[in-house]
């Protein structure tokens, strides 16, 4: 249930009738919400075969594979939105994934746990150990997260690659859905970015 509000926010960012590709779609909860809203063509990519079976039962169109394999077979601008919800931190080649998202989609929505959150900073400062908090609960040796970053990191990533940030939503907590307007890198547990390649859509 921890991911409910980030999903709701992402659904609210995507207009009806959009073509959407969800990378790392899990059991398809976000795709189902989008389907209920009324999108024209929605697809998911997921690496876990048990999740694929769940998605199939829900009637979703999904591809069993690794996001890192790239989206090479899709034409440019095949989708209105490509979503990477809380998955950026586990991909092996984040730059390639983001570039591909922006190529096949007119817009990309990227959300990730914000390592700049004050409790994480405090944890490292006080304990001197890899931070473990409710939204990042795993030990350093037991986590799939290999590319953790902060909201400030991702802003810089976009700036150096001339990626335009259309919107940034700082989420104080996925559980309450409360958003943060100021000091987002300090006060947000999750950052949600809407980005474009900077070209004219």
């Amino acid at each position, binding site marked *: 249930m921890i991911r409910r509000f980030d999903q709701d926010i992402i659904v609210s960012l995507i207009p009806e009738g959009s073509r959407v590709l969800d990378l790392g779609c899990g059991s398809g909860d976000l795709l189902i919400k989008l389907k209920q809203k009324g999108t024209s063509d929605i697809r998911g990519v997921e690496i876990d075969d048990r999740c*694929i079976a769940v998605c199939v*039962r829900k009637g979703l169109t999904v591809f069993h594979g690794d996001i890192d394999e790239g989206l090479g*077979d899709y034409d440019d601008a095949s989708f209105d939105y490509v979503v990477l919800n809380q998955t950026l931190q586990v991909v092996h080649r984040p730059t390639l994934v983001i570039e591909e998202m922006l190529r096949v989609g007119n817009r990309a929505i990227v959300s990730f746990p914000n390592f700049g959150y004050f409790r994480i900073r405090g944890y490292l400062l006080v304990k001197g150990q890899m931070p473990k908090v409710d939204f990042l609960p795993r030990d350093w040796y037991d986590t799939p997260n290999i590319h953790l970053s902060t909201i400030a990191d991702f802003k810089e990533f976009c700036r150096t690659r001339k990626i335009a940030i259309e919107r940034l939503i700082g989420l104080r907590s996925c559980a309450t859905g409360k958003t943060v307007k100021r000091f987002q890198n300090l006060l947000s547990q999750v950052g949600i970015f809407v980005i474009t390649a900077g070209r004219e859509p």
Partner: protein
Amino acid sequence: MYVLDALPQTHSYSFEALELDCGRTFSPVTIAYETYGRLNAAKDNAILLLHALSGSAHAGFVNDKGEHGWWEDFIGPGRALDTDRYFVICSNVLGGCGGSTGPASVDPATGRPYGLSFPVITVGDMVRAQKHLVDSLGIRALLAVVGGSIGGMQALQWAVDYPEAVRSALILAAANRLSAQGIAFNEVGRQAIMADSCWQNGDYYGGIPPRTGLALARMIGHITYLSEESMHEKFGRALKGVNGYHYRFSEDFEVESYLHYKGSRFVERFDANSYLYITKAMDYFDLPDLASIKSKMLVISFSSDWLFPPAQLKLLVRTLRRKRKDVTYCDVQSSRGHDAFLLDVAPLTELISGFLENVAGQL
């Protein structure tokens, strides 16, 4: 406990004139088939199941001869092809030897079996013959076409050739073309049959069939249906006897004995010429143009399948999704190689029943 009204029976449907890809018009044609479950009043709950190289129309349940269906665990109430909901049809392919017209059938013009005068057929021809059968049952659109291996090729051909008559296509362990490796294995199998002196240029009916050649073809084929891992698990280097090596060229290892058994069982029920014709149809199969497809598709590969490796199925899926076809893909983790589409009941049932439920729900 589910009790069938009657044991499954093989029916047959005959018709005149089938246009073949080779340019000939072939006549007459008989297609053997079995059905399970009931066709509903709207005639929209029919699933056409397509068998692989060595299969037959007898897919489900146990028949009056005590023979098990080749996909028995997938057919029946509550199973992947739920006979409480769906009407399942399985027919023997054109060119086969399970009741449908093939090289062993009698040519009415000569009163003798066709042998090699039987035309070389394609997967497209097989499907065209099946369409006659489906039409004869008054079914305008199939809820699904389902098949593995060359059955999966047929399912894909159905989706391409009859987009309005196929609501969904389930393609297991098959791609839109056979690889060079697949053609190579088929050719070695055919050469084994044709090198058998009993083969007599295909004209062995009434005499001794080329048992040795056909058994050898089956042994070669069977190796490609397994995986290195499954062979290791099943046999390892286990010896047949307890006394160590024989120091003779007889069966020492369990795996040899298994292959011999598979080969000898196969010649009891299969016609060598059918083997030639069906493998040739597989070799010719190549569908580069998938644009006409309208069906919802489920494509399933098996991680240890080296006859139709996951990468090849992924390529098919990538082509389809690039054309914005409604295609779902799953690579089932399995050590059982190509044969997994016959054996991995639990994961396949989950995927297939979930998929069909949604297709049926959209009616």
